[in-house]
């Protein structure tokens, strides 16, 4: 399949990237090549095969609904933020 400029813009939006024109051009070529390679699955017949989403042999491991002790408290986590004010994470205007 052919990856268009529009496809790249759409994927950049889904990925939350602000890409330069040069980056878009090289990514378009790279993605074209990668998708070309992974498309070889077209020739494989998987009818009647169940998908595998995980290889861990257990599921639904229950534990009591209690908060486990955590190493990092609110302050330690807030201190990681690039910008902070009044004990809250600061961000630029939303709209």
């Amino acid at each position, binding site marked *: 399949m052919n990856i268009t400029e529009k496809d790249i813009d759409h994927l950049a939006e889904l990925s*939350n990237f602000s890409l330069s024109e040069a980056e878009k051009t090289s990514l378009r070529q790279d993605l074209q090549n990668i998708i070309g390679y992974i498309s070889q*699955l077209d020739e494989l017949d998987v009818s009647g095969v169940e998908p*595998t989403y995980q*290889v861990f042999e257990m599921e639904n491991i229950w534990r009591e609904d209690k908060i486990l002790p955590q190493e990092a408290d609110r302050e330690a986590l807030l201190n*990681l933020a690039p910008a902070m004010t009044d004990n809250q994470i600061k961000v630029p205007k939303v709209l």
Partner: protein
Amino acid sequence: MLRLLKPNMKGMSMQIASKDISAVSMVKAALEKAEKYQDYHVFVSLNSENALKKAAEIDAKIARGEKVGRLAGVPYALKDNFLSPEGKTTASSKILEPLESPITATAVKKLEAEGAIMIGRTNMDSFAHGSSTENSYFGPTSNSKDKARVAGGSSGGSAVAVALDIVPFATGTDTGGSIRQPASFNGVYGFKPTYGTISRYGVVAMASSTDCVGFFTQNPEDMDLLMQICAGQDSYDMTTLPDFYTTTQSRQDSPRIGIIKDFDNDAVHPEIRRALTEKVDELKKAGYEIVELSMPALKYALAVYYIVVPAEVSSNLSRHDGIRYGYRSAEAETLSEVYGKSRSDGFMPENKRRIMIGNFVLSSGFYDAYYLKAQKARTLIIQEYAKAFEKCDFILTPVSPNPAFKLGEKVNDPVSMYMEDVMSVPINLAGLPSLTIPVGKTPEGLDLGLQIIGPRRSDAAIIALAMQAGDALRGPAAPARILRDGVDGDTKRQDPREEEVK
């Protein structure tokens, strides 16, 4: 010159505990070697001050006659995607460059509880995306045998740290070969356990259904010790299995070893095919039964991997948004610009490719054709391994189709770089354990490795096989083939398993 086998880590910690050598001098020696080999760019950061302080504490404990752990005073290197408050955890990326983690990965806690001392954080492909350590934001790591060649990846720094004998062990993560391939490129042991054996808590997530924590060592005995220490269930990682490692019967009488016919083709470097043929002959001579396997579904594993893993990557890496931690672009004026610019500046080109491919295969219209189809093909791959393990106990294959390639040779051609993973990714898709063992060298002195793959939970048996069949696999010619001057003539390197007798 007379050379003797150096003590393994058990021996090292015994020497420290019996005051033959101090933990401080052991750590100092490791830090000096790290300085000496600076031009290989093994480390992203050194932990000198903390390491020396911890070593002094261990020496003091011993002096007071207190009990110390199984790794007391043993220096190690930590791949830069393990969180710990010692230094910054950058995952060799710009977006995490400022991250001083308040939490410690479970694996790190277990190692440190036994007295191991982290001397530095090792370079890697940014977010473990890559097969050469060239995708690091801080620049590439050189191969231990040829500075003009790649270390392999993504755990390149860790592999080279052990190969240059800076430290006896290093941590790694293996999502599609990131431990086994650099181990093979540098002549050391590299183990990727059964999925869920070691906790992933506190490890920067890449692809949650295949990510595994493992190690690099200079011998299988050290690997066994690390597995005994680190395997086991963790309430902070719900995908961990209860410890089966220390309780399984590890030795098997006359195991049958499978070899995969489908991998014996021209796409594999002649030296690697030669090494495999030689080792198979040696194993036959040593009395092992060799079984030929046909596994045609494996040919699709690489395509499956580069659908499933980018899909999980795109999801796992969406958390890096410049808001709560890490790098935030100073030029962003709106919230959406914070996301867009921070992520665009903060990720390497390969991170961007994988995130975008992931979003492509998951997007409506392509989900069934790519993502769902890949997950069905994954089932076929798992079934093929299950059938193979009815006919044999272990499988012996190359780790990668080529020995270490040149820096810059593949980094701008993602598909040719991905092809290097063709023999390592299938086992991650199936969640199997696999150990890289060094088996020899090319005529130009590059390391060659093979991997021993086993069924789920055969981890202890694989490592026992490596000990048991060691001579047949390594070959008898170790000293002669390894003792040579470095490529640039300024450093003298030797087999890390040996040391000069003073």
